[in-house]
């Protein structure tokens, strides 16, 4: 009985958090036009969540692409199909690894920082002070960060995939001797602009929205103590990662099931 009661409470808590999160999102969305109009602030936020994550994304993408080149080659060469290496690397990156890994890296690098920042602003009463100055902090503080995340994540994912393809080419063509022409032509013949690339971008937009939403909400929902902020930061990364994997499965089955 105890266990059932506990489970019931947890589910109720969870539903309540989801409800609060949805209301939060609705109010932030209402603030987006205003956020888009504040170009200077928006640029600053894109700098913080996007530009500062760029090196991490580029380096990670390069390595992931190189590993894909190596592993893909070892696999394909058994079937004598190493000419298809470019296609294999590009599809893996554009459809899955680009959007997913860059969203995870973004959650760890920028999402956690957003949660901590908003949580601290709440703890130090900056958000309340803003509210008492008749400025809605969800519009003035949260919305620009949200918009910046939505803009930055697809660009980061694109960088990840592009650099990854170059990394795969470096290993496959440069080190393992796959023909350069075959590498690119197989890729171009097999990768579809709409089905693969556009869908990959759609994925990364969805991840950008969800990860940024979760991070900002966790910060805003934090218990205003140092422990509360630290918990919120952890939760933002945990929930973001779970959401990315879960949504990736759903989106993949919707997009690529033909």
């Amino acid at each position: 009985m105890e266990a059932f009661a506990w489970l019931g409470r947890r589910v109720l808590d969870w539903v309540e958090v989801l409800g609060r999160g949805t209301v939060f999102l609705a109010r932030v969305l209402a603030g987006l036009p205003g956020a888009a109009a504040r170009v200077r602030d928006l640029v600053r936020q894109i700098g913080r969540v996007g530009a500062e994550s760029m090196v991490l994304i580029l380096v990670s993408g390069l390595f992931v692409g190189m590993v894909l080149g190596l592993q893909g080659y070892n696999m394909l060469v058994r079937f004598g199909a190493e000419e298809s290496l470019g296609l294999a690397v590009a599809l893996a990156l554009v459809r899955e690894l680009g959007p997913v890994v860059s969203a995870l890296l973004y959650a760890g690098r920028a999402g956690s920082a957003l949660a901590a920042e908003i949580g601290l602003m709440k703890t130090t009463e900056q958000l309340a002070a803003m509210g008492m100055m008749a400025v809605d902090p969800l519009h003035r503080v949260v919305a620009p960060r949200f918009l910046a995340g939505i803009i930055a994540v697809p660009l980061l994912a694109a960088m990840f995939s592009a650099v990854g393809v170059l990394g795969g080419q470096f290993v496959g063509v440069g080190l393992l001797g796959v023909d350069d022409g075959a590498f690119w032509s197989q890729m171009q013949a097999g990768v579809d602009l709409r089905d693969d690339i556009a869908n990959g971008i759609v994925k990364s937009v969805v991840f950008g929205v969800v990860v940024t939403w979760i991070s900002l909400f966790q910060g805003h929902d934090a218990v205003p103590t140092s422990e509360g902020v630290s918990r919120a930061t952890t939760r933002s990364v945990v929930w973001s990662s779970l959401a990315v994997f879960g949504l990736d499965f759903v989106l993949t089955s919707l997009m690529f099931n033909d």
Partner: protein
Amino acid sequence: MTRDRKIEAAVGLFVVIGLAALLMLAVRVGNLTLQTDYGSYRVTARFENIGGLKVRAPVSMSGIRIGQVVGLGFDPETYEAIATLEIDGRFARVPADSSASIFTAGLLGEQYVSISPGVDEEFLAAGDEIGLTQSAMILERLIGRFLFDKASAGDGD
């Protein structure tokens, strides 16, 4: 204000690199052609068996990609498969008596339609059908025939 300047420059760089990456994915990986669109026309070809041919498989002539498969259908009267091929407008001069075959790229690779040009002075136009076709090579059938031939050769001795 120098701090703001720096941030703006960094964001500018970020956006430029991001858009460059998107462009590279579209053009270099996804083969978005920025050349003039010459339009395209569709022809059909009947095959006894299309094997593993899929929609979007390439159509090539002399190894050059000239179009793609846009539809696969079935004729319930003749029990034949009908493949609809979309051929790029740049390749308008395909002789009307050309033949179409389904080949496999590599031993186990993707299947594609290859068109071998004929000698006719007339060219294929939209809605035409390619008369001469050769079906996909089915590996199992080849092996089966090979074994059968061997066996019957053994009988003849």
